């Protein structure tokens, strides 16, 4: 039933611009970091590379949130939980890579476990010394939680505000749990002091650049997946559910299947974002689970423009750049600025930056179209195939 759109045809203009910018960044940043000598004004220091990598991780998180909020109408205030879980899975791998080089020099146990008198590795740490296993867990753990949570909630038709509140409760519960020392995941301090990733020094310049490029690739892939999902027939039904869930249900669809799938994919994407975030930032701790973090991610999407995918990524990068600038220059002003942003965007820019731009351009197109013979918005191929199914 899904129309087989050629992969390239499904990418629209803003998508091409987005991918183009991403590719350019992927080329320019490593080039100006590795090839330009440190003294030169064009040189990009390694810490900036990691900072940009962090922004891209946030962009991927925002993208995953836009998939469920912008297209499924599911306002998750707990996406930070999936981000954090992916991050912890990666953090556990990195902890195991330290091996006997910890402060206490224990051959197997990480430092905090030695400190807390653990005798042996807890069962859920087993296998994390093996990278493919850890990588699988980065996808599986957030995906499974997202699936279970989404399936239960959507099946009982918990929607709107209620869903937002329970997603917030979920990340809050996880935060409390991860703060406990008994959890065996570093408690308050989280996991840090990483040494190697896949036997490369995680601090090395080359590794940092590679991680940055990988993050950009992951973001591009995430965009393609989300775009593919939203332009397909599946995506149309998801939007139908967003706009009129009971009506879609009466038409014979099962909204909870569609929503649970979007939520699961989105959770996995957020998990990958978290996993890429941890080696670049060098620490993962329970503060990633604070509800405030998740709500902040929502505002990135709102500012960029929800339901546009590209806008979400743009919003995440812009706001985090502003945060870096402001918290450096005027730490007091940052919360005022962020708070005002929340209020002003919801009041005056409900479609976000990209959404507003598209609407403006659309207006101009419509004005032009009024003078020209009408032209279908959707490529003719799509229309035919839609009829055929």
């Amino acid at each position, binding site marked *: 039933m899904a129309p087989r759109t050629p992969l390239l045809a499904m990418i629209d203009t803003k998508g091409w611009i987005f991918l183009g910018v991403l590719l350019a960044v992927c080329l320019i940043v490593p080039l100006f970091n590795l090839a330009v000598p440190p003294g030169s004004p064009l040189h990009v220091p390694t810490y900036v590379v990691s900072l940009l990598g962090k922004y891209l991780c946030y962009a991927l998180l925002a993208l995953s949130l836009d998939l469920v909020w912008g297209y499924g109408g599911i306002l998750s205030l707990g996406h930070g939980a999936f981000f954090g879980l992916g991050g912890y899975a990666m953090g556990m791998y990195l902890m195991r890579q330290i091996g006997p080089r910890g402060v206490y020099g224990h051959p197997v146990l990480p430092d905090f476990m030695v400190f807390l008198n653990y005798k042996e590795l807890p069962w859920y740490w087993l296998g994390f010394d093996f990278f493919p296993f850890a990588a699988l867990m980065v996808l599986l753990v957030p995906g499974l939680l997202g699936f279970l949570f989404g399936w*239960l909630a959507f099946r009982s038709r918990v929607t709107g505000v209620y869903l937002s509140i329970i997603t917030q409760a979920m990340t809050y519960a996880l935060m409390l749990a991860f703060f406990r020392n008994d959890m065996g995941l570093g408690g308050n301090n989280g996991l840090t002091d990483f040494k190697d990733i896949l036997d490369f020094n995680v601090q090395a310049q080359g590794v940092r650049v590679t991680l940055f490029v990988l993050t950009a690739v992951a973001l591009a892939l995430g965009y393609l997946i989300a775009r593919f999902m939203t332009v397909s027939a599946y995506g149309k039904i998801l939007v139908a559910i967003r706009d009129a869930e009971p009506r879609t249900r009466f038409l014979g669809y099962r909204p909870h299947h569609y929503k649970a799938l979007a939520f699961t994919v989105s959770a996995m994407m957020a998990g990958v974002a978290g996993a890429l975030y941890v080696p670049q930032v060098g620490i993962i701790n329970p503060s990633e689970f604070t509800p405030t973090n998740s709500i902040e991610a*929502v505002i990135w999407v709102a500012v960029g423009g929800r339901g546009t995918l590209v806008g979400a990524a743009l919003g995440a990068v812009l706001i985090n750049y502003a945060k870096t600038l402001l918290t450096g220059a005027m730490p007091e002003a940052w919360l005022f600025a*962020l*708070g005002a942003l929340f209020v002003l*965007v*919801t*009041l005056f820019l409900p479609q976000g930056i990209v959404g507003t731009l598209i609407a403006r351009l659309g207006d101009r197109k419509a004005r032009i179209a009024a003078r020209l013979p009408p032209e279908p918005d959707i490529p003719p191929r799509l229309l035919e195939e839609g009829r055929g199914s």
Partner: protein
Amino acid sequence: MIRLLVYLLLALAFAGPVRAQSPADAAYTRLASDSYAEIEASIVGLAASGDPRTAPVIQALAEGRLFYRPADKALFVKQGDAVTDARTGVPAPATEGLKPVRANNKVRRALDSALGTLNLLAPDPGKRREAAEAVFKARDATVLPALEAALSRETDAGVKRTLQEARAAVVLAKPGSTEADRLAAVATIQGRADGDAMGILRALSADPSAAVQAAAAKGVAAIETRLALIAGASNVWYGISLGSVLLLAAIGLAITFGVMGIINMAHGEMVMLGAYTTFLVQEAIRAHAPGLFEFSLAIAIPAAFLVGGGVGVGIERLVIRHLYGRPLETLLATFGISLILQQTVRSIFGPTNREVGAPQFMTGAFDLFGLSITWGRFWIVVFALAVFFGLMFVLRRTSFGLKTRAVTQNRRMAAAMGIRTPWVDALTFGLGSGIAGIAGVALSQIDNVSPNLGQGYIIDSFLVVVFGGVGSLWGTLVAALSIGVANKFLEPYAGAVLAKILLLVFIILFIQKRPRGLFALKGRSVEA
């Protein structure tokens, strides 16, 4: 002054030999001895004498401040630089060559028990009770006569009971007491019903008398039941206490979210503003009218209501008004407002905790059937219920409440009947926010007053309202109290944090089962 001293000394010089006739004086002389046995015997003698002047002397000896002059064996108490004559309490001129009265472990034991015995006769009932408790714990058979004497003199009923319990403990510890005495003692100890009593009765399982053994076993069982009951009752009480805090935090939200459907993420900040209002009111009172401090909370309540309500009306008029019908956007906008309010307070008052004092009536505790209840917590429970029923009254019985309900049930019809719906919206939101401010007054008494105060309550409050059923005030009450009690019953098994996590998970699952909460509103408006 010096002349007066000289006269006094002269008088003392003559009075001394006369006083030496009394038995206490004989004991005093023996204190200034080289032999530990002598000193010990002297202490026992002094304690038995019941002479009120002996207490400071023994106290001084226990603290190593008692000295004697080898020449005439006169005793002196040193207090800092001042030296007083031990027998008369009159200041003595600084004397050379004083030697400290010596003590070894045996003497110190005698001292302890002597101090205990002496305090049994102290004029202050609190001190007497303390002494009786000490005897109860030590179970020294030698104090029995002193105990009997104290018992015969005692007038305070509470102290008398403690004395009887102490005597019972001593009787049980003494090897030679009769079976009848011991049975009576077991009965007395059983009445005490605490861990110490249980320990004493348990130790009797090796008693030579079978009757005493049986009585003790029965006593242990009775105490165990009673302790379990008290533990259960105290869990319920702490649960109600926690529940009333949740109720206070959530009840304003039950109006703004439950009745109006507005997701007000800045609700916690209204609570925080209420707490800071209390702080400001107390500061003003301390500066201008310290006598009014007892009434500071009573003054802070209307002030906090006005601050919270005023800010609430402002938010409604400026922001929320434009977002009706878009609940998720309201959520984001009010979250932004909460960030601004937090940072404003942080900029003005600083990020650290502010000290809010408790008036006299909020401090201390009282005892209810073996359950210790602090007044602060008690009044907060009372206050939470008062706010709840007050709000109920406003919504059910006043013209404003009628209009509020009309607008929420059918806005257009209400408008057609001449109700100015925008005003009702603003005032209802103001009411909810004002109640949050009032909650802040109460919470300032038990929580840290910091800019983050509200954040800690916001998730809990939303869960309480959703769990209870949106739009149902009774549901909010039941949800708050049951979450509080469940939390306190889980805590002993799971620990505080895990208990909270379990409850969060439970509520998340519960909402899956009943998405509309415990007391769901029925009807078509629910789906809108």
